[in-house]
């Protein structure tokens, strides 16, 4: 059996990749994907911790809820990206400055 530390390490690596991707990339699609990676890192951590405790399944159930929330979030996010593209002909976040000034 793979010890829980490995899962946590994987989760931390994934979260860091997502966070750095979110911070440094200007492409909104990539930003969205980075957010997905971070959320999935959380999912991994939840399930891994739940595996340690055999008496409860809260972590696993919680992971399902998170997946549903992610789906909804992606639907809204992509819709926003599409609208942005229609209006500004760009998917770069730093060019989405309609509200500025």
């Amino acid at each position: 059996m793979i010890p829980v530390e490995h899962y946590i390490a994987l989760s931390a690596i994934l979260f860091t990749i997502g966070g750095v991707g979110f911070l440094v990339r200007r492409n909104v699609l990539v930003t969205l994907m980075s957010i997905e990676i971070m959320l999935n890192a959380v999912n991994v951590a939840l399930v891994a911790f739940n595996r340690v405790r055999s008496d409860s399944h809260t972590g696993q159930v919680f992971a399902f809820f998170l997946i549903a929330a992610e789906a909804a979030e992606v639907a809204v996010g992509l819709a926003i990206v599409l609208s942005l593209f229609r209006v500004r002909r760009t998917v770069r976040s730093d060019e989405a400055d309609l509200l500025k000034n």
Partner: protein
Amino acid sequence: MKDFLLNVLAKKDDAVLLGFVLAFPLLGAFVNGVFGRRLGKSAVRLMALTALGLSFAAAVALFVALDISVGQHVNKLTWTAWDWMTTNARPGEPNVEIPLKFSVDALSGVMMLVVTGVGFLIHVYASEYMIADKGYWRFFCYLNLFVFSMLVLILGDNLPVLFVGWEGVGLCSYLLIGFWYTKLPNAQAGKKAFIANRIGDFGLICAMFLLVYYTGKLDWSGIAANAQALVTPNASQQVHLWPIGGGQFQDTHLGPLTIPLHLLQPGTPWTITAATAVGIALFLGCTGKSAQIPLYVWLPDAMAGPTPVSALIHAATMVTAGIYLICRLSFVFVLSPAVMTIIAFTGAATALFAATIALVQNDIKKVLAYSTVSQLGFMFLGVGSGAFTAGFFHVFTHAFFKACLFLGAGSVIHAMHARIHDDDRSQDMRNMGGLKKYMPLTYGTFAASTLAIIGFPLTSGWFSKDEILAMALVNKPVHPYAEQLAKRSIEVWSPPGWVPWLLWGMGILAATMTAFYMCRCLFLTFWGDFRGWTVGRPSMVHAEGTHEHEAAHDDHSDHEDEEGGHHHEEDLSQPGLPPHESPRPMTIPLLVLGTAAIVAGLVFNPAAVKIFKHDFSYLPMEHWLDPVFEEAKKGVGAWGDEHKTHSLELVSLVGALLAFAIGSGTAYWMYILQQGKPARELAAKVPALYQAALDKWRVDEAYDKTIIGGVDALADTAASVDQGVVDLLLARVTSLTVAAFGTVLRTIQNGVVHVYAAAMVVGLAGLGWFFTAAHADFSVAEANGDYTITAAPGPGYGFKWYPEAGGKPQSDAFIGNDTLKIHLDEGKSQTVKLEVVNAFGRVGSKEMTLTRAKTEKPAQTIVGER
């Protein structure tokens, strides 16, 4: 018919007729005000006259019902429209209900008839007088509204309802004085009237507060029942208000010079009862509304309004509201002989003062205006002397003859205006003369009213004015509770013996002047030759020099504007059309009022008749008002016995007749026999005095300089404080500070999502570092030197205790034991250290020095040890 009247329309507690009397004028005001512009003049005229006519008819029916009820010992008919409000007099007292309740008794019944009756006649007159005016509908809306407000004032059963009417007539007066508001002086006159009235209203409001505080009631019968609470004759303490004086001011020494400041106030404090305070406050309200010193200044200016308004509001009805109020609350006023004397003196002084101004005025309306102020002074002299019936009777007769005089003056101005298209000069008596030939009806009624006002025997004015003068001499204000107060050794002020003679002398002097200036007005206007032919041709005016008082000063106002030319002025080089009599709707009211001016006195028992015939039994008015003044009679005594009273009345009668004879005789000699020569010579001899009287003793200017100037200065100060402190310091500085912060913060809020995300990451990292730190903390409990130190718990915490900081720990490893026990002797101290490690292996620590205080041994022991 009689049953229907008594059982349906005018039941004792539900006299619906009262509602009708009030509703018709209100309906007229509403219709004329809202639809009047579209209805056209004839419809407006019909509406206004119908409203007043129906109201008068209802008032007559109500009066008949009241008369029958009085026969059945019901003195008052009431009607409650609805409950208005409930208020609290003072904590712990029962609530004060204030319903919108109206009532009619003997006093308000007479007043109601006067207002609706004279009001109707003046409406008829005005419907012709104002026919050429563009604001016809507006005029009648205001006039109807005025009658409604006046009826509310009269018929209201409690002070707040009266106050609604009081303010309503003030508003209508303001609107009607400034009716031709495009002319600046008119607008200013309206404003002046409104503000002077506000000062009086302040007094009335204060009086209301005091009354509800002390008596717990605001309706007439309630105040009457509890009025003695104002002097508290039986309670253990006297109600003292405002001790005035008492040595706060000490003399100041400037070197050898001593400034006697103690003269500014009495050495021992004056105290006044609540009754005096209420009386003074109420009287301040009356001076405002009824144009007495010091607030009389608005009434002469109020003549800027249309003449029917002057007749109705500023002569016959509204200005008598003050006397009505005093009569209504007579039982409060008699509780304070001081206030009664103040009222009498104010009245006499106003009568005299206004009469001196009226002596020299040239504008016919100005003469009548000051005459009104003077006559109102007579009324106050009457009520102040305790002769409430006489004072109110003068209100009644004055309403007829003064309304008639004003309407007559309006008729004259109407005729003059047709020749002279100028407001000022068509009212100038110097341009009139000989009008009796052209306007016989106006002359006849004007002369009849003049006879009444100057006190020609057996006219209405003779009866009422004589009664006032006689009562001023005879009556003495006595305190109704003097005995009870004397038992408690409380001194009640009582007027000294010279007071009635001074009052009477002032009254007689004013009556003499009245006779003089009214005859002068009559002679200048109607007698002699018409002087208006030449107006408009300055060369001839100067050449002829027939003007009255051709002193150098008074001509410039006449002729100044002629250089500019009145382009619509007709050519007056030839004698044009003569002045004409006014049309019938204007003369009929004059005839009715003129007749009333002569005969109205017969409804009263005059003192003069009583002197010759003691059992004279035809006394409708006096007995009619008896129930109203029953309570107040307790406060009116006499200076002597019956015999002395009788002789004093005779003296007064002779004095009044002499006043009439001297005043009118002098006027006849001066203006008819000598053609005005003595008057001109007199004016030339004392030009300064004459000029001062012509300028109304410059009271307006004095008020401008002192009170109005002071208020202006205060306003300027407030304005500069507003601009300097509020606007600059508070508003500007605050906005600049906020703007500066905004400028700084705006650079951070740059709209780039990634910067926000990075800031969030930094923040989260900071929070994470804080929450993973180990926090060492503990609490200490002590009993007899045994200290128990308990560490605060935390997740996965291990503890390491150092009983002596810097010494060795209890155990080398972190353990779960979170308490440490140590013992300290008295006066010793020890420093304890705690180290904590948490789940992340981070360590925190805390040190604390514990000191046990030394217990003081008892002092005895110490002494013994020595």
